């Protein structure tokens, strides 16, 4: 049934060399970039995604709303709250219900924790892509601390399935706040060490500044989102523009970094600053979190009234949008995921044009492209 003899031809022109970067390449994920190099300069880029296309959207039509939550978080398990939260919001809006305030705050805490976990993983891969092995190990080690925190609330290492329609699965334990603040203090110190060893390293500066530039107009035009867009001097963040989950009560106006360079360095720094700012947001949320129940009493299969809705939230990689059509049945009629990684694919040909082969891995990864998410 499965054809195992597909030919992997890559197109090439005379006097240039075509290189297939991926899917088995230390500098690629589950993704292939076919680049044409003239000497050491990349002249042509042909992104070839689809190695992890698992038919999530089709399969979502066969699962009911609760079954869909663990199913829909699989595309991006390092940011699982980021991808399940808009789905739950969409269901709640179609049912015209609101989660209790404590649940909303818990969602904020979990989403920001996930943002930190995701950014740390990103930083951990960015290090070796620049040839810095220590920068792989340190973020991976410190990520475990935040995974511990998330595990305290969610009960799993990465796939929490924490947000459900009508609230969150369970309340946070009592000692969470103390432990979280302790870990944040520790991590603030660690971040300074990261700065010393990697971020402010003169070689990192030289290698990332001024390469892979995506200008503001281009960034808007090709549809970049999230940190990539904010690195190109656009202050666009759904948490601020269209606040969900009581983000508007937290006054996060100053917690959203914007840089104007639009290069590899800016995209790195945005995430580096967001690591810090997400902790600040969690601290604010922990201060204001009210008491009360954490979920509406749902039992059994949810029946969502007929309707269409588009909901978007700010996940770690950018705008996570869901277009949900319900026909009143047990299962959704159509779930369309608009994932941020998919929207950063067109950024690569622009950023990778006329750079050297050596700059390809850092530029590619500076978009925080997560192929599993993009392929759905």
């Amino acid at each position, binding site marked *: 049934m499965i054809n195992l003899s597909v030919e992997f031809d890559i197109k090439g022109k005379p006097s240039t060399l075509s290189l297939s970067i991926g899917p088995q390449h230390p500098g690629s994920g589950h993704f292939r970039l076919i680049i044409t190099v003239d000497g050491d300069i990349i002249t042509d880029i042909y992104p070839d995604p689809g190695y992890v296309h698992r038919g999530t959207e089709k399969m979502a039509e066969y699962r009911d709303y609760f079954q869909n939550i663990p199913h829909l978080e699989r595309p991006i398990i390092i940011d699982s709250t980021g991808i399940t939260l808009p789905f739950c919001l969409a269901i709640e809006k179609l049912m015209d219900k609101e989660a209790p305030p404590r649940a909303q705050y818990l969602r904020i805490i979990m989403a920001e924790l996930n943002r930190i976990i995701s950014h740390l993983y990103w930083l951990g891969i960015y290090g070796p892509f620049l040839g*810095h092995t220590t920068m792989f190990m340190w973020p991976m080690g410190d990520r475990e601390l935040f995974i511990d925190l998330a595990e305290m609330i969610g009960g799993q290492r990465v796939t929490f399935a924490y947000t459900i329609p009508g609230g969150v699965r369970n309340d946070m334990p009592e000692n969470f706040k103390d432990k979280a603040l302790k870990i944040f203090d520790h991590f603030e110190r660690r971040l300074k060490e990261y700065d010393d060893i990697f971020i402010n390293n003169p070689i*990192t500066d030289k290698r990332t500044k001024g390469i892979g530039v995506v200008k503001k107009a281009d960034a808007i035009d090709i549809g970049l989102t999230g940190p990539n867009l904010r690195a190109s001097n656009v202050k666009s963040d759904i948490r601020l523009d269209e606040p969900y989950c009581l983000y508007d009560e937290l006054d996060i106006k100053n917690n959203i970094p914007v840089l104007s360079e639009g290069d590899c360095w800016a995209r790195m720094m945005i995430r580096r600053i967001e690591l810090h700012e997400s902790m600040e947001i969690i601290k604010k949320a922990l201060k204001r979190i009210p008491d009360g129940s954490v979920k509406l009493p749902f039992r059994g299969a949810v029946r969502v009234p007929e309707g269409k809705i588009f909901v978007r939230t700010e996940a770690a990689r950018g705008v996570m949008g869901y277009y949900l059509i319900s026909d009143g049945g047990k299962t959704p009629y159509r779930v369309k995921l608009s994932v941020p990684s998919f929207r950063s694919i067109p950024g690569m040909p622009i950023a990778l044009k006329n750079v050297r*082969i050596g700059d390809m891995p850092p530029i590619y990864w500076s978009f925080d492209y997560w192929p599993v998410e993009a392929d759905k």
Partner: protein
Amino acid sequence: MPIETFEQFIKRILTIVFWLLIIAPMILAPILFIVIESGLIEFPINPYALIAAPDLIMPIQLELMASSFFKVVVFPGFTTAALVATVMILFERKFLAKINLRVGPLYAGKFEGFLQPIADLFKLISKELIIPKKADKTFFVAIPFMLFAVVSALLSVIPIGPSTYVARSPISLLIFFAIMGFFPIIVLLAAWSSSNKFSFIGGLRALHQMISYEIPLILVAVSVVILSGSLDLYQIVIAQKTVWFIIPMFLGACIFYVASLAELERIPFDMPEADTEIVAGWLTEYSGMFFGVIQLAIYVKFYALSALFTVLFLGGWSGPGILPPEAWFLMKTLIVMVFMIIPRGFNPRIRIDMMVKIGWKYLILISIINLLIAIVAASILSG
């Protein structure tokens, strides 16, 4: 009976040795008796006397140790260097792990994974050797042995002690650099014969890198020659009796350090093997023991350049008499090697154009300044 644990293995080996010791006299002694008594073979010393008086063996051993074969192959030659390299491979892995806040190899060997390189060696020996269909087979197979030979030759000119050296020549420094000139060619051949795009890019990068960094390396060596007044590495060590050359020529030592990092393809200059960019560079197609031999040769080259650094700047084998001079030499070399490993812990890799720019623009300029310093220092030192 299958062996499953380490204890069983040791027990088996001991049993084999025991039985061999029992059986060997029973079979060998009569044969030896017949051979000696029949007078078919003339022995310089009566073998019976050897058994009776062990001190007669010493002259033979000394003669063996003085032979050039022993010198090339075992002591100051390849085996010593390979041993040091093996220790360094293990040390590098443990040291990097400690920087990374990890443990590093732990279970190979009962204590702190100290047998890890041996495990790697056994694995590589037993691994399948793949020669790609489109590769130039002759060169592809020859490259590991060529590297091996060149590296051994490199070691032969370095004097380890006042009387411990393989070859002494009035122009041994020149010979060292002449032999080092083979590396770019071998690497390019390796890259080309693999017929792999990534190999080829890696080979070209290595060529760029080695050629552009050999010039500052040689210019610094020239300044050492000016200070010592000799091209002989032995004489250079003797000339450092009063003051090590690292003191008048700290700048030169720094250049030499940076340039040898580039020459050795170590981070931050590891573009020829940058795995996230071009898979494994010119090593991409090598598998099994070919890879092992090349890696060993690279580490032995690492040792050779560190040894050269010791000879040129750290006074070679000179040191207080509490230890033999060879020990001082090896100790200094090991310290230099550790210093060459440290940048790997906290530096990203640089780009090829930056590397070429640093090499041609800055390092050559600074090494010419260093040459002037050397001239001034030489005039001061000579009074």
